[in-house]
């Protein structure tokens, strides 16, 4: 059966690849990013917005419900990172990271859950990072924002489980996207060496875990965090 997806952060990187993948499988996708759409497909609609803008999130979710009648899957993919020692991290940067990563995830989950509760069905997938369990130096704010998402994922799973909604999170290793373009090569190398499998993550690795989480048969899998590359939480 064709499904209705909301995927945040679809202008580039993993979000764009995921949107294109699910569109190619015949699903409907509603995406968003701060910039204009970079996907042109009859089953794709795009909202240019900030994921931490509460009113804009409400509008997107309600328009999706009106357009497609339901929402099956939410992928809270939008995220930003910034590497810095905590002593030279501006407060403004820390707020921006929490706004995009945590508040975006919270607001989308809240609004979509209202629709999914009435459907008695839904899949929410949040994004964390291996930087959180590895306590990576230089990523304190980014890792903390993702730690908040992990805890939110587990509590939301408990609150929404009775309505047939599962909430899980994927923790990718570094994947070669814009998110890590400013991270020095030696830092990335050192991170890869701390994984059980020493390589960059690829789109197929992320897709595999997301497909597992959103599978109809995964209705007994919730509150789980899966890190790629053999990183242990």
């Amino acid at each position, binding site marked *: 059966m064709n499904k209705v997806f909301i995927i945040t952060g679809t202008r580039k990187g993993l979000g764009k690849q995921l949107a294109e993948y699910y569109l190619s499988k015949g699903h409907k996708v509603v995406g968003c990013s701060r910039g204009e759409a970079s996907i042109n497909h009859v089953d794709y609609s795009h909202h240019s917005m900030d994921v931490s803008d509460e009113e804009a999130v*409400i509008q997107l979710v309600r328009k999706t419900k009106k357009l497609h009648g339901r929402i099956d899957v939410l992928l809270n993919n939008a995220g930003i990172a910034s590497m810095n020692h905590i002593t030279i991290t501006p407060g403004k940067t820390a707020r921006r990271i929490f706004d995009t990563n945590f508040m975006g995830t919270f607001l989308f989950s809240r609004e979509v859950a209202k629709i999914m509760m009435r459907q008695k069905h839904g899949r929410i997938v949040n994004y964390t990072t291996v930087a959180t369990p590895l306590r990576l130096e230089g990523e304190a704010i980014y890792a903390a924002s993702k730690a908040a998402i992990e805890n939110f994922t587990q509590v939301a799973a408990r609150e929404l489980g009775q309505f047939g909604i599962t909430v899980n999170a994927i923790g990718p290793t570094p994947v070669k996207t814009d998110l890590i373009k400013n991270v020095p090569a030696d830092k990335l190398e050192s991170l890869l060496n701390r994984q059980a499998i020493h390589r960059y993550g690829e789109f197929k690795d992320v897709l595999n875990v997301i497909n597992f989480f959103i599978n109809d048969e995964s209705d007994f899998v919730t509150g789980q965090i899966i890190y790629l590359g053999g990183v242990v939480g």
Partner: protein
Amino acid sequence: MDRQEILKIVLEAVSEVGEDEDKDILQNPDESTRLYGGANGNLDSMGVVFLVTELEESLSEKLGIDLTLADDRAMSQRNSPFKSVKTITDYIMMLLKEKQENS
């Protein structure tokens, strides 16, 4: 916005939640029907969650009005707007007036 129109939507939403919760008193509500809080409340906190989602969707679909009912004031008010059909109707009217004034 006509208060009667909002009241009708509130009554329909309460009735809908009453059916889901299998509570007779909520299935045929009037303006005085007690909802949340106090000894005579007919909804528990999850019932309020259902009512909020039902109302937000009905207001959006039937009247094209996008409101967030569970705002900071609603959650912190000593006299909860979710106390009765009358109070939630008045609360929606107040939010609509504010929205109109701010637009």
